[in-house]
């Protein structure tokens, strides 16, 4: 079991190394190897999650560690989709490093948490999956934003070098960022609404988690904050022309909030979401 739990981490790590090597040297064979390794990692991860689902009888989404695992898996799928549809591998170096680092958490704690009665609702699964997919989109937007800023600085300073030779155009990065924010925002909105509906349904439950479901809980507070942040990013682009570098910064700050909410808050601070 432990070997199977560590296999995705290993493959993601190797993929990250290959993506970085490809980013530096631009050897087409290394690029193809990187994609293959990432594909293998996602497959191994799919197998792992599938096995956990069969063993437990429900989707392993209970607890922050399981959510991190599902997040990494969704991020891998989303990134592979983008890479295969755009033939653009430059982002892989950033995305796979994030994946490999985060995948260590579930590997250290591979067991499936038992599911309390409170979470036996289809709304729970929809809530968690749509939010995790939103986070994966925001992670991509974050990477796109960072690379946009790096490329922007190079062109502005007239030092055409490392990133200039490796990244797609500013326009393409900006457009992909807009799409990632758009998809992420829609899923975030849906996830929060479903979560709110579900919370009102279970409010009478004796479970202390249910009674802690309020905006005062740090997890929910930060979720609302990041929703406000991404709503601004989403609408400011069209309404007041906040594209390009401003959109890039917004997506970077937004993802920092998401990550804070996901890890430290999810593990230590929340009293409503600590299953």
């Amino acid at each position, binding site marked *: 079991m432990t070997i199977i739990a560590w296999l995705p981490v290993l493959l993601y790590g190797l993929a990250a190394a290959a993506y970085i090597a490809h980013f530096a040297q631009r050897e087409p064979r290394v690029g193809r190897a990187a994609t293959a390794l990432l594909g293998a990692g996602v497959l191994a991860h799919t197998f792992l999650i599938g096995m956990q689902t069969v063993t437990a009888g429900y989707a392993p989404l209970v607890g922050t560690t399981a959510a991190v695992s599902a997040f990494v898996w969704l991020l891998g799928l989303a990134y592979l989709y983008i890479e295969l549809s755009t033939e653009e591998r430059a982002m892989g170096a950033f995305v796979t490093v994030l994946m490999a680092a985060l995948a260590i958490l579930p590997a250290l704690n591979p067991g499936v948490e038992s599911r309390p009665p409170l979470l036996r609702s289809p709304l729970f699964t929809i809530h968690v999956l749509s939010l995790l997919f939103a986070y994966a989109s925001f992670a991509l937007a974050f990477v796109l934003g960072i690379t946009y800023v790096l490329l922007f600085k190079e062109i502005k300073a007239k030092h055409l070098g490392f990133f200039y030779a490796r990244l*797609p155009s500013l326009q393409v990065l900006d457009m992909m960022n807009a799409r990632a924010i758009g998809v992420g925002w829609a899923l975030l909105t849906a996830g929060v609404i479903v979560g709110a509906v579900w919370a009102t349904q279970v409010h009478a439950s004796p479970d202390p988690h249910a009674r802690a479901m309020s905006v005062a809980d740090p997890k929910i507070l930060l979720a609302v904050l990041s929703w406000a942040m991404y709503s601004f990013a989403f609408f400011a682009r069209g309404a007041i022309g906040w594209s390009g570098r401003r959109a890039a910064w917004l997506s970077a700050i937004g993802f920092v909030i998401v990550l804070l909410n996901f890890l430290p808050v999810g593990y230590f601070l929340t009293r409503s979401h600590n299953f």
Partner: protein
Amino acid sequence: MRLFAVGVTHRTAPVELRECIDFARAGLEPALSALTSRGVAQEVVVLSTCNRAEIYAVADDDRAGEAFGRFISDYHRVPWDRLAPHVFEHRGPDAAGHLFRVAAGLDSLVVGEPQILGQVKEAFATANGLQHAGAVMHRLFDTAFSVGKRVRSETGLGEGAVSVSYAAIALARKIFGDLTGLEVLILGAGEMAKLTGVHLQAQRVKQLTIVSRTISSSDALARQLGGRALPWAQLADALSSADIVISATGASEPVLTRAGVEDTMRPRRSRPLFVIDIAVPRDVEPGVGDLDQVFLYNIDDLRSIVKENLARRTAELDRAERIVAEEVARFATWMQSRDIIPTVIALRRRFDAVRRAELNRLEPKLAGLPPEARARVDEITHLIVEKLLLTPTEQLKGLTDEAMMVTYADALNRLFGLSSEEARTPAIEPRRGQKAS
């Protein structure tokens, strides 16, 4: 059987001489026919560009190289004494290496330029269409094409613009991606403005606007480029809708000031503006480049990009040369394995001759057989010969060591009494062109 590469290039001959040796001018076909009619070569391809005139050929005679040189001299009526010092000659693997370097752009005036690969392809297609290319030329040029492709995809040799106009266009692409939907503003209507306009027009931008102090000259340029001309007074309007501005006026004072550009930037929101100042003295205040969404490049910036790109291409040379060396080694091995082919053919002919002789001898006895049975006898004897020869043929073709090859050929010649005439028969059937002689 040897491979030759003979000719003149920009490295060996001055332009005055190269001008006289332009095979392409009168068409490659007559040159190929004239060359093959001399009967020196079994296979020929002629490559002719403004920087080179080269003959690639397969010939038996070791002195064929000079014959090709003299052909160039005769065909173009350039005295041999004048031409000879400028003619290069490569043989065997060196000849292959030369073609591979040419195809990869390593031998080009601007290292890594991509046009040459297309010219090499054309040269081969012409020769092949006239049946002057046999097995060796097919293999040689196929390898050359793949070397060209490999060098392009595996090294940075062809990367980075090496002229100022292309550097500007490459930058614009890095900022805007596709240029087709963009509006371009050209300030000035002089020679530089026109040149840049032509380059941008080739990128199919949406709108070209020309603004200059004298409306008549901007009108004229607008007509030439298929753009529109606006009077100088409407500069601010034109600026606010432009994505790319090229400034090339002869003004002695800045035409675009920081304050002026800043005013037009506000309604643009985050849409970037790319300003290219190719005028000397400069048309654009340097402070314009400090504005948030403005990228400002002047002529010196573009020149230094070109210089860096050239330096980077040079740095990639080693990797490209390694690819060439790899492919040359592979090609040389293949060429060597072909040396055994005359022996293989002689051996097969020998076996078949024995078969036919025996069938002839038995003819009176076989005559009584029905036609189908007679055909079966023919087929069976043929199959026996084929099967007996299958393994030896494969073994012989698999040889790569030259000394071993000579030993084998010698042994076979003695064991089966293969005449030297049979063994020398060329591997490739004579071409139509050669029979004319």
